[in-house]
């Protein structure tokens, strides 16, 4: 195979790999393609309060179930002086706090961060019992109430075709304050909620049903009581109903805490126990959300990447990952434009220094050091020194110049000039040496051309490297470097003219 074909195949493979990994990270792991994407993360805090009676205390709180469209990013428990563990009990997780003796008001906290993802909220099938426990409506129950319930069931059944529409009809009737039957029932069950009554009526109608406890995620809610939904078995699957509207489906923003009917909180050895919730929303960078959710599952692509490094090293890598982009700029300008620079990749190093120093400060410091350095170098050239010693002397001069610039500018109150230390000294010294040779051999014009070319490339590279999209892509999708590598390989095969050559050979074309 010819080298050219190999290059194209290799470049295509690299580009495919890079693009594939990028798409995977974006689609499957949720890394944002564009910078500045924020996701809403809800922080939910459950506060358990009770009054200790002085003896041993045990409080058990049901923890939220896995929910498909809510991703739990983080959970934490806090309770000073309490022993704590999580137990699994009949398909449910419960947090258990225990203490030998507690008296007076007690507070226990459970906090979790969740992030809403698209998708159906509940998984099917649910292996909850579909047995119906007929409510006992015996002698103690008034005949009128039983009649009212039966009448409600009959009316709803008449006006419906299946379990779903039956439930909707029933809930509508239970919400209608003009309905005589409904008023009678609620008059009897004074201390019961809508869902309680609906469960009773559904049991009479022989339909399996249970309650769902949860919260509506709305920003800045405090001391919330859990809200209830109704879940009904229609013979094949479980369907959730919002009791007030009677419409099927889990409402948007509803965070399911407990599914199925047991207690939410059990406290032994305390009284007046209650659990309240508060909800706060935070806007968190999308990348952080992806990082949090993938770190749990130990996604290899993320776990074996620079994200696993300490933060300090990561920030260094943020800079290093920009170098290939700078190199690409150099390649493009040299291959397609034909700019002359002093030292092939020296402009990239300059550009990196500019990132730290800001452009204008960096440019002025660089030109200042270059001019002063050239001036010193011209004197040194008259001293008949060996080359290595002379360059070392220039290095020392450059260091002294940097020190002087820092101190003088600091005294003058120009703190930006302190960033002078980001310039690569050795490179500066060599640049000065080369420039002085170019000056001697080819004259000052060539020095201006080469220094100007280098600065132009450096500024362009700086401009590209500080682009927020480029910064975002290089750091969050380092696999894009493979695409870049493929592209550079293809550019390396370019045999067409450079922009500068169109000028140079224009006479020949005619």
């Amino acid at each position, binding site marked *: 195979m010819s080298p050219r074909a190999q290059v194209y195949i290799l470049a295509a493979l690299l580009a495919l790999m890079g693009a594939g990994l990028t798409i995977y990270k974006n689609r499957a792991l949720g890394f944002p393609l564009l910078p500045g994407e924020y996701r809403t993360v809800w922080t939910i805090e459950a506060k358990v309060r009770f009054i200790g009676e002085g003896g041993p205390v045990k409080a058990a709180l049901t923890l939220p179930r896995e929910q498909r469209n809510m991703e739990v990013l983080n959970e934490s428990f806090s309770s000073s002086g309490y022993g704590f563990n999580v137990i699994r009990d009949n398909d449910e997780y419960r947090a258990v706090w225990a203490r030998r003796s507690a008296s007076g008001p007690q507070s226990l906290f459970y906090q979790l961060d969740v992030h809403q993802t698209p998708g159906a909220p509940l998984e099917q099938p649910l292996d909850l019992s579909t047995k119906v426990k007929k409510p006992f409506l015996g002698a103690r129950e008034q005949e009128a109430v039983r009649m009212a319930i039966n009448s409600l069931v009959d009316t709803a059944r008449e006006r419906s075709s299946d379990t779903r529409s039956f439930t909707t009809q029933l809930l509508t009737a239970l919400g209608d304050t003009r309905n005589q039957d409904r008023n009678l029932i609620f008059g009897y069950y004074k201390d019961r909620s809508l869902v309680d009554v609906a469960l009773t009526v559904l049991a009479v109608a022989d339909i399996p049903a249970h309650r769902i406890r949860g919260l509506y995620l709305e920003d800045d809610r405090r001391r919330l009581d859990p809200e209830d939904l109704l879940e009904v078995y229609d013979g094949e699957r479980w369907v959730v109903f919002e009791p007030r509207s009677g419409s099927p489906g889990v409402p948007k923003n509803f965070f399911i805490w407990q599914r199925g009917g047991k207690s939410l909180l059990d406290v032994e050895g305390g009284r007046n126990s209650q659990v309240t919730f508060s909800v706060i929303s935070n806007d968190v960078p999308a990348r952080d959300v992806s990082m949090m959710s993938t770190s749990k599952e130990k996604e290899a692509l993320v776990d074996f990447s620079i994200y696993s490094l300490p933060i300090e090293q990561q920030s260094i890598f943020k800079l290093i990952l920009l170098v290939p982009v700078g190199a690409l700029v150099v390649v493009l300008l040299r*291959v397609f434009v*034909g700019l002359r620079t002093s030292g092939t990749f020296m402009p990239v190093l300059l550009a990196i220094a500019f990132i730290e120093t800001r452009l204008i400060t960096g440019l002025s410091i660089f030109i200042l050091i270059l001019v002063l350095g050239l001036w010193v170098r011209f004197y040194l050239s008259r001293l*008949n020194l*060996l*080359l*290595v010693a002379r360059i070392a002397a220039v290095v020392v001069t450059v260091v002294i110049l940097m020190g002087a610039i820092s101190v003088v500018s600091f005294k003058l109150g120009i703190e930006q000039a302190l960033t002078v230390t980001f310039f690569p000294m050795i490179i500066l010294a060599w640049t000065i040496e080369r420039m002085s*040779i170019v000056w001697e*051999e*080819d*004259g000052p014009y060539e020095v201006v051309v080469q220094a100007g070319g280098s600065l132009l490339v450096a500024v362009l590279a700086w401009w590209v490297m500080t682009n927020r999209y480029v910064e975002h892509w290089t750091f969050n999708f380092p696999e894009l470097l493979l695409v870049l590598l493929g592209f550079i390989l293809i550019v*390396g*095969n*370019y*045999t*067409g*003219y*450079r922009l500068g*050559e169109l000028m*140079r*050979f224009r*006479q*020949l*074309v005619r």
Partner: protein
Amino acid sequence: MGVLGMNARNVNYIARYNDRDKYPIVDDKLNTKRAARRYGIPSPELIAAFETQASRRRVMELIEPLWQFVVKPARGSGGKGILVIVGRDGDNYLKPSGAVVTADDILRHISNTHSGLYSLGGKPDRVMIEALVDFDPVFDNYSFEGVPDIRVIVFRGFPVMAMLRCSTHASDGKANLHQGAVGVGIDLATGKSSHAVQRGLRVHRHPDTEMPFDKLQVPGWRDLVRLAASCYEMTGLGYLGCDIVLDRKRGPLLLEANARPGLAIQVANGVGLGGRLRHIESLDLEQLEKNVEERVTYSMHQFAASNTP
């Protein structure tokens, strides 16, 4: 359009026809000189070579009796670091421009060269001291201060294009076209000037001496082309530029060979290299195995100015 661009030169010709392991023969002028002697190719006489940093005494001993010599870095590029001494003024030395150079200046130059100031990548270098070529006076009127040399591009053993580089006042006696030297395209068939260019513009007379270029004729042209063609066997490089000077007595001498010859020759000739290179590439194997003499004959016929559209 047959103009060869830098990218095409690098990818299609240099990378494809020049083996990396043969570069040392041309990149180091001492190696070139040795190879030339082995192949019987004449080149300027080597007076001495310093492999390592030479002591002051040794250098002084050597240059003390000399009146005319050239100090060169073995691995210099683009004519950098070449110091030409054409005469003496007491203890001091004279450059072609008349500038005075002291012995200390020469010592410093040698020391710098050793340290790699003029070599690619700043690697430590060797220094050679050559005899000054006794230039053939035919070009005296076509050159200001410096001495013209002839560049011939040889592709797979076939000379494909030639030019004469004449220094001018503007180029400060240097033969670099981008510094203002005149590039004169030479017709491969006859050795006569076919086209001349200074700073990208066509000229008909030398800007300093006012000599018209159409009277220019390189003497012993066929010998010169043959010398260039034989460099192919010597270096083994497929795409090659040979720099040749004319000595009054010895005729053409090989100054140096270059594995990455520049593209200015196209401007000097007003003709692109691309078409000629592709013509050679289209030859079959049998034709490529011709000897030097046959190749020269073929090229002089094929690439004659009268034959080029």
